[in-house]
């Protein structure tokens, strides 16, 4: 039986409207054969986690440009745990200073892609690290 397609939620939390990156990633993942759900802009962590659980995704990719990453990533991860969906992996990208990355990983973020990352690197990372959830 063929393995089921990976399901990825691309999410844009916070108030900034910079969705160029999120949309490019969403398209690139879809072109790579994944099922992609894009939340649209201005989502709260609650809205994102609800969508992830409802859509039964394997991972969430968060795109953050507003500088609110140290608030929003932990909020999403805590809510996932609360909803007993802690096995949904969280990765992300955007304007995130290098110094913040170790702390984010400690908090449970699987990977951070900074400006200049290619969509192919991201696709490859997902294929290597994300498995369809049982």
């Amino acid at each position, binding site marked *: 039986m063929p393995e089921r397609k990976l399901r990825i939620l*691309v999410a844009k939390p*916070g*108030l*900034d*409207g*910079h*969705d*160029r990156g*999120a*949309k*490019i990633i*969403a*398209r*690139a993942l879809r072109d790579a054969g994944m099922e*992609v*759900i*894009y*939340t*649209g*802009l*201005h989502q*709260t962590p609650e809205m994102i986690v609800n969508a992830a659980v409802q859509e039964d995704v394997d991972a969430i990719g968060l795109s953050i440009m*507003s*500088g*609110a990453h*140290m*608030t*929003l990533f932990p*909020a999403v991860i805590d809510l996932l745990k609360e909803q007993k969906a802690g096995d949904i992996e969280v990765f992300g990208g955007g*304007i995130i*200073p*290098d*110094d913040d990355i170790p702390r984010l990983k400690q908090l449970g973020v699987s990977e951070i892609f*900074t*400006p*200049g990352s*290619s*969509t*192919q690197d991201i696709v490859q990372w997902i294929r290597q690290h994300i498995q369809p959830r049982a």
Partner: protein
Amino acid sequence: MPPVRRSPKKLRLVKSPRTARPTRAKARKPAPGAKKGRPALRTYDAATVRQLASAKRAWERAEVARSIASAPSRRTEFMTDSGIPVPTVVTPAERAGEDLGDLGLPGQFPYTRGVQPTMYRSRLWTMRMFAGFGSPDDTNQRFKYLMAHGTTGLSTAFDMPALMGYDADHPMSRGEVGKEGVAISTLRDLEILFDGIPLDQVTTSMTINASAIVALCMYIAVAEKQGVPMEKLGGTIQNDMLKEYIAQKEWIVPPRPAVRIVVDMIDFCSRHMPRWHPVSISGYHIREAGATAVQELAFTLADGIGYVEECVKRGMAVDDFAARLSFFWDVHNDFFEEIAKFRAARRIWARVMRDRFGARDPRSWQLRTHAQTAGVSLTAQQPYNNVVRTALQALAAVLGGTQSLHTNSLDETYALPTEESVTLALRTQQLIAHESGVDRVVDPLGGSYYVEYLTDEMEKRALEYLRRIDEMGGIIRAVEEAYPQKEIGESAYRYQREVEQGERLIVGVNAFQSERQEPVQILKIDEQVAEGQIARLKQVKAERSSAAVAAALARVEAACRGTDNLMPPVLEAVKAYATLGEISDVFRKVWGQYREGGIF
């Protein structure tokens, strides 16, 4: 409706600016394809063009063919970033139809060569550095620092909660207070922001849109407290809602009521604030979202046409407000194409205003613009390269004839810029202004075969988009149907693919990478900013009269539901210390919260 040309009042070209060329244009009877309504004033006479065309064909067969045989072209075809074909060399042979009436002299219709006759010889462009972060006190200090270092106009960045109409204590504001701009919830914050800055002596630009009406009213109220009447206030408020739905995506209510507020503000300013620009029609965000230069040009002009149409529908006379409209362009990497964009924009706008809207006042025809170097072109890799990118882009803006300019800092792919990096960005402009010599002559690239070719091509392609948008029923309709949004999404994806496939080289990213990490300092915004802002908000709420606030908000709501201009009741509400969030809540209550679907 396509633009209809009327005959110009008078063609005031006294002589050809191209005295060094082999031939001089003479006014002659209209050539085939000449612009209707006035005789063509050909730059090159037919005999010269024929002679050159034949010489060029021979050159292609001989020299070019030999050269390619020994050193083949690096690409099969060369294109500008917008996809305009780039010839090996442009000569008068390709410029046979060039008409000096399309250029005019600087300060003359159609302003291709600049809106002022003497440009930077009389006054340099305004070096306007965008700033705003943290608390109002933090930004106040940055303003004073920039003024001490020679910046000539203030430019305010607001934080995301302020842009979306939320106060600092709203749940949606978590983690965002003071991060991407200065935090503002009440008039008290603006009083601190402009403390010690005499508002009759500076011009201020405010980058705020969905909640622009609140910010402008707060600014008027602060000035009043300084004893400066609104008639004396000079500056610009971005207030371009159409580009928000297209690209920047900071909104409160749906497009139609949002545009109604914009028109209220244009109307109010045209009556009471003669030195204020009530809208800055912005291509910057459209470009940053992934548009090509042609798309930026077209969608921005379409937005401008949309506002003028709405004002005219309201019964305003075009010459009463058009001179106060201003523009804002992005300046990206393709040097000549960017210069051509500025020139084409001025020419299209002049004709649209005169011929389509019947404006009579030459100031209504003149497209005045601010420009900013392309934030999206900056790279996190080898950040010092960004200084060079920014310098080239800034030079293009100056050669394009901008009226004011912001230059980005090298560290902006990481965070908001530090004081040191902002200073270097400002110095870049000062070097161009005072050392490069480009300030001494007006439109030095006018008459360049290539730049004139690109200017014509940009114009042609932008007019094609404008025609399509007119056919769709205008820009508001097009935005509701997400037409510009989809076009931009396609271009953004294509650009990314070109970079990843190596068709487009970005130094330090997909070529010439280096392992060495160049450390840059990062400006961090403390979470204490949010706590401080929330505390001040609480205090303001405790001190104000809740009855006065409720009454003022009720008057705002009544104006929203009716047709009265919203400026007076909003001004009254901010003076009563109603918060930005409370006033925005009234808008949400009356018109609903706008949401965009998750299309990609």
